[in-house]
């Protein structure tokens, strides 16, 4: 009985867990203020990603396409990037940052987006837009490599490295959130504020939960500014919450500007939040205040009501982005649950060497599988054909039919969660996230007990 780590054996994908790199690059792009990314490829690569974001956040975000058509695919389409940049700059006078995001098609035909950027910098921008601050940032995110997770990681790194410039120390820490929700950003900012730590949050997407205002406002966008990005080189340290979503940028800052760096652990659950706060304390010298002791106490109080009575030994399957899946698994273990199946939705070769995965291999004493490069069929097939019995599924909305068809309760977590209302508003990180996750899991199990009349009377005297 132990934890087995392996790759999916099938060659293909049946019901993917993650989408491709350009989506991740676009997610990074919308996190920046005064920025509209141009995706160099077919129009679907943008149209559907915008739809996906709007499904998840119930908001609209601006992203442009170079609209690759047949002639471009045959003869090359860098001229369409040039035209796209010009059209965008003419019509969106506030735009200062334009990531140029490549896709599989334009990488296969070998369009040189770095060359185009150079050409535009020396030509169009000097001639037509002299005096206007414009940053064109080539981002190579071919769809046939990695996943939306690595696409995000690459884009964050390329954007940070474009701007980062050493000036004088600013006394702040860089906080790279990874692919999170507005609720997570709120939770992290709250923790930092309680510790009186001044941080530059990259990429600052709290505003994705945008209000409906009396004056009308048509789009949502992130709040990370050019100044924020530039100053990253002056920070007293960098904390990247996630290893695979922003870790590269943290390492870049460390290597290039000697900025002390801590990557992870993803602060999901009480224990990982404790470690996060300790890391912040180490980096800034600021103490962990009594207010957080109290908040932690509230979370522990809530979870204590749930763990041994309801959660103990419950079998859980978790799928999604690796950092999220691992963090959730660790939290489940603390809650006395058995995360028997972890599905990591891409083929990152560093997963087997991830110390968190190694720890699971070394220390977990029940039967557990970690599948890399997994798809959702890895989960469904085990349930349908191999007798896997589960009490709970943790994952995003694309797996909803497994829960529905096999009558297994599911807590929606991660990205995207379009089949539940407002989940982006709730954190999974920090003490608040631990409380929310624990209570959401419990309430989901309770509803299921009632629906199936499975000892539903237990709840009479809880």
């Amino acid at each position, binding site marked *: 009985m132990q934890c087995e780590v392996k790759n999916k054996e099938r060659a293909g994908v049946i019901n993917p867990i993650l989408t491709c790199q350009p989506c991740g690059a676009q997610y990074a792009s919308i996190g920046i203020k005064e920025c509209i990314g141009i995706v160099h490829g077919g129009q679907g690569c943008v149209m559907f990603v915008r739809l996906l974001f709007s499904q998840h956040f119930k908001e609209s975000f601006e992203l442009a*396409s170079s609209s690759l058509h047949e002639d471009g695919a045959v003869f090359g389409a860098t001229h369409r990037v040039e035209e796209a940049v010009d059209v965008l700059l003419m019509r969106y006078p506030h735009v200062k940052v334009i990531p140029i995001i490549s896709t599989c098609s334009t990488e296969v035909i070998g369009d040189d987006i770095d060359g185009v950027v150079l050409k535009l910098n020396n030509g169009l921008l000097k001639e037509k837009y002299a005096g206007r601050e414009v940053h064109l940032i080539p981002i190579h995110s071919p*769809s*046939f490599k990695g996943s939306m997770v690595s696409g995000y990681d690459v884009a964050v790194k390329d954007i940070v490295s474009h701007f980062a410039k050493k000036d004088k120390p600013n006394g702040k820490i860089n906080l790279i959130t990874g692919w999170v929700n507005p609720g997570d950003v709120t939770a992290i900012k709250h923790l930092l504020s309680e510790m009186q730590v001044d941080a530059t949050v990259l990429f600052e997407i709290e505003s994705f939960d945008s209000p409906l205002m009396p004056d009308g406002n048509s789009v949502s966008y992130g709040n990370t500014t050019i100044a924020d990005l530039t100053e990253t080189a002056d920070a007293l340290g960098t904390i990247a919450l996630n290893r695979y979503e922003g870790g590269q940028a943290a390492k870049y800052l460390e290597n290039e500007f000697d900025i002390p760096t801590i990557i992870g652990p993803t602060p999901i659950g009480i224990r990982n939040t404790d470690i996060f706060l300790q890391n912040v304390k180490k980096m800034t010298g600021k103490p962990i205040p009594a207010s957080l002791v109290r908040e932690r106490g509230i979370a522990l109080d809530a979870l204590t009501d749930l763990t041994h009575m309801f959660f103990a030994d419950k079998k859980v399957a978790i799928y999604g982005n690796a950092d999220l899946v691992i963090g959730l698994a660790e939290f489940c273990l603390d809650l006395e649950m058995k995360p028997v199946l972890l599905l990591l939705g891409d083929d990152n070769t560093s997963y087997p060497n991830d110390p968190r995965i190694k720890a699971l291999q070394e220390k977990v004493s029940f039967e557990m599988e970690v599948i890399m490069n997994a798809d959702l069929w890895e989960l469904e097939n085990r349930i349908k054909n191999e007798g896997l019995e589960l009490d709970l599924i943790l994952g995003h909305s694309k797996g909803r039919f497994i829960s529905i068809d096999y009558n297994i309760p599911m807590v929606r977590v991660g990205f995207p969660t379009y089949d539940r209302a407002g989940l982006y508003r709730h954190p999974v990180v920090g003490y608040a996230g631990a409380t929310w996750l624990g209570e959401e899991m419990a309430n989901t199990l309770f509803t299921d007990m009632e629906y199936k009349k499975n000892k539903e009377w237990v709840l009479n005297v809880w």
Partner: protein
Amino acid sequence: MPYHKFKCSECIPEREKHAVIKGPGEDLTSALPLGYLNTIPGSISERGCAYCGAKHVIGTPMKDVIHMSHGPVGCTYDTWQTKRYISDNDNFQLKYTYATDMKEKHIIFGAEKLLKQNIIEAFKAFPTIKRMTLYQTCASALIGDDINAIAAEVMEEMPEVDIFVCNSPGFGGPSQSGGHHKINIAWINQKVGNVEPKITSDYVINYVGEYNIQGDQEVMVDYFRRMGIQVLSTFTGNGSYDDLRSMHRAHLNVLECARSAEYICNELKVRYGTPRLDIDGFGFEALGTSLRKVGLFFGIEDRAQAIIDEETARWKPEMDWYKERLQGKKVCLWPGGSKLWHWAHAIREDMGVNVVSVYTKFGHQGDMEKGIARCEEGALAIDDPNELEALEALEMLKPDIIFTGKRPGEVAKKLRVPYLNAHAYHNGPYKGFEGWVRFARDIYNAIYSPIHQLSFVDISKDEIPDQTSFLTQKMISDVNLSEEVTASKELREYTGNYDTITPLRNKTYPDFPAEKKLSAV
């Protein structure tokens, strides 16, 4: 020429001829925008790609098929679970999607072996499914994988399976419409004529260009069955792969969305002599006339008339309840393609709303001809609209409601214009007599939403109305109505159920024994 120039697009002269306002005395020979031209890069157009037009729009509604995309995983993931085309086999086609997961090494060395492995794996995973469609993507097209050859090889080795190949990479054409075209032509070239169907009626149709959004197809097929008509196949919503191989045996092609499926009807006409009849499944008058035409064609007009009479008696009083309350409301009809003409006139006739603008994301000039023809004077027609133009138009037109897609709907929300999903519907189906009432009800509930009204109040500046602590839709909608209307005993609000489709699936139909020798025309 009555072209409308958007301020935001003054700097891109190529947009000059893409919007028109049909003024007094003008007709289609003076007021028609350009259409289906390459998109202007960076304009933030709403268009999708030719892959999605083929796979996502037309291919995937086929219900008993493994839909596999040969390429990296994103095309598959992105076009999965974003539509509401249901099926009566527990939505197999909605639930499962397949990607060959092309990686860098395949780009360099080719991915035909990978494709074959994938096909075999997928059939193994779903042993009861014997049909597959393979979709080319940008990546597999550019590296030149011979998908047809692999499909043929597998069919040779596995005689019980049948595979359809759709070569429609994302870059193939100005919009998703390029993919509609390619999959139409590929289907008739590869598959039609392959299967001889069992003919069970004197009256046999193909129902074409219908995607069963929230059950539209099942509503319409119900009418056809009540008339004793055999619906041999539906292209493609809730449609079956093998039924669609026998399209050549129908007596009539009944066409709904000409934008996405007129190609196959035209080809069926040329190759098999099957006539094409364009119909409207939306609108009391238009739908009634459509059923009557199908009835006339087979000499069973009385059966059509019986349905029209029954359905009209049942639903017209409910329709009219909403019509009284929607009279004069302004709507921007901003769908993808066909609904701009399916809806433009019918919503005016049946609901009394004014279409102040139509647009098409991916349509051709033919769609605009129909749309503009069906609008009243002064409507703004926009081809391939972009984000800023849409905002400018909304600012100018100040509509009471907008019918558009999910994401543009979020933009409208922020501008405090209520939106209805024109592609997926809110509480559909919208086809059929009852469906049309459901549409009117959704429009009514959106326009007279109490929450919507609150979004106009700025509590920091405005007087906060304190006479009432709640409002209902009716309290808002009936303010200026005459007592004759509000106290009417004839008119009533919608009385149907949330789910109108499941009961149809268990229905039995009158037996109309075939009279003629059962063979094809």
